[in-house]
């Protein structure tokens, strides 16, 4: 048979892939047994034998990239990123979870704990309480530094359940912020030292934190006042001081600024054939999230249409059963991501995403300076 070279195919426009290969490149086909074409064809020369350049030039990226915000509230947001590669979307997700700093309680100085909750369990629970403090205003505290007003937040918890009274539930609103620093005196050897103006405590605050301009209008405390820390029976008491420092989710999950952050690819539901009348009714009933709708066309006939493909959860119920996968195709668009970010409250979600992108830029810059 006479074979013409691929570049001479008359029906394929120059610089464009034939439709079946374009489908393979841009869509994940979610078949009944397993998804196919899940890999990303990133290599710039992948389609060079067809004369198509697969490389992503910056101007093309800048023209095609779009962000659409669907929902934005104080604590969570949902937005679409269109035209970006999964490796970068995943990098943002990983940074949001593990590499953005937050403040969380790290050191707990326990003066008295006669409750049934053990010291270490109490300290662990205190660490997991989200603190409403902007971590960008603080510095990291390392081993050799002294805790001062630039790197530590001090809280005090002193609760007592009276004898003869009912049981007491200790909630997080009992954690009081101490803007002047620690109040527990350090045990010093020299008991005969003359009484100086201030005994040495566990932190050395040179000025009070609420005199700093950033904290003058908003006091620091736990984000939610109703988190149960412990329960006390009659006669039990807890007295402790908690020091919160800056850290990253990489070290411990208490420092993660998001409850979670995730993304999914946009689902695309396509009807391969016309579906009419009873089959249409059946299809609409099958879908648990009502992706399909009935449309009445002329002569009293009914036709099924795809009304809400975004709500599709890929349960594959519509392609189950005899021959349905020839009528309905479920796919995912490879470069359209629906991102959801749920913040624990220290920073609003749009600020968190901004910081995450900045962190990725800083990493690149570090590599560039290391290479030069």
């Amino acid at each position, binding site marked *: 048979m006479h074979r013409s070279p691929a570049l001479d195919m008359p029906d394929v426009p120059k610089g464009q892939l034939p439709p079946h290969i374009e489908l393979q490149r841009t869509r994940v086909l979610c078949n009944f047994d397993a998804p196919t074409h899940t890999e990303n064809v*990133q290599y*710039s020369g992948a389609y060079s034998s067809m004369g198509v350049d697969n490389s992503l030039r910056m101007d093309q990226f800048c023209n095609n990239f779009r962000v659409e915000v669907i929902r934005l509230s104080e604590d969570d947001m949902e937005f679409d990123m269109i035209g970006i590669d999964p490796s*970068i979307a995943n990098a943002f997700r990983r940074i949001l979870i593990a590499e953005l700093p937050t403040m969380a309680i790290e050191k707990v100085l326990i003066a008295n704990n006669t409750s049934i909750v053990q010291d270490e369990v109490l300290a662990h629970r205190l660490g997991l309480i989200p603190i409403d403090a902007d971590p960008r205003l603080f510095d990291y505290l390392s081993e050799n530094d002294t805790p001062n007003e630039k790197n530590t937040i001090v809280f005090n918890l002193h609760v007592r359940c009276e004898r003869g009274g009912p049981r007491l539930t200790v909630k997080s609103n009992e954690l009081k912020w101490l803007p002047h620093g620690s109040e527990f005196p350090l045990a010093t050897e020299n008991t005969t030292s003359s009484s100086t103006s201030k005994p040495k405590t566990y932190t050395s605050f040179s000025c009070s934190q609420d005199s700093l301009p950033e904290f003058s209008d908003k006091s620091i405390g736990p984000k939610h006042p109703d988190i149960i820390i412990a329960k006390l029976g009659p006669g039990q008491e807890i007295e402790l001081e908690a020091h919160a420092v800056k850290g990253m989710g990489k070290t411990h999950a208490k420092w993660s600024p998001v409850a979670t952050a995730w993304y999914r690819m946009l689902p695309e539901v396509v009807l391969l054939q016309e579906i009419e009348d009873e089959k249409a009714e059946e299809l609409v009933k099958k879908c648990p999230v009502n992706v399909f709708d009935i449309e009445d066309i002329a002569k009293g006939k009914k036709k099924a249409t795809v009304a809400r493909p975004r709500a599709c959860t890929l349960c594959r119920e519509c392609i189950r059963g005899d021959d349905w996968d020839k009528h309905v195709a479920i796919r995912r668009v490879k470069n359209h991501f629906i991102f959801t970010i749920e913040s624990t409250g220290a920073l609003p979600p749009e600020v968190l995403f*901004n910081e995450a992108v*900045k962190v990725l*830029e800083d*990493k690149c810059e570090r590599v560039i300076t290391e290479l030069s």
Partner: protein
Amino acid sequence: MEHGSFSDHSKSTFSLSDEDHTLANSVRFTLNQDPRVAFCGYSIPHPSDARVNIRVQTTGDSAREVLKDACQDLMLMCQHVRSTFDKAVVDYKLSKPVKDMSIEK
């Protein structure tokens, strides 16, 4: 750290410390998009060490330069993402009060 040969600068392995899949996969993507690259990939020698080896083989240019250009491209992409995102958030916040008003009517 670069492990390559003194005579042939077009192929070498870069070992980055304190890095993981976050940066390595993104850099691998931008490297692949560069037409000068013949081969690129990354591996993590042990999951407990935060160390990544990125292998770059080019069609003649210095591998170090190509990696630097890929990181620059990634930085430009991030900056563009940030500006587009900020604009989208501002647009959404401006359009939201209008929506609230129309509901109240």
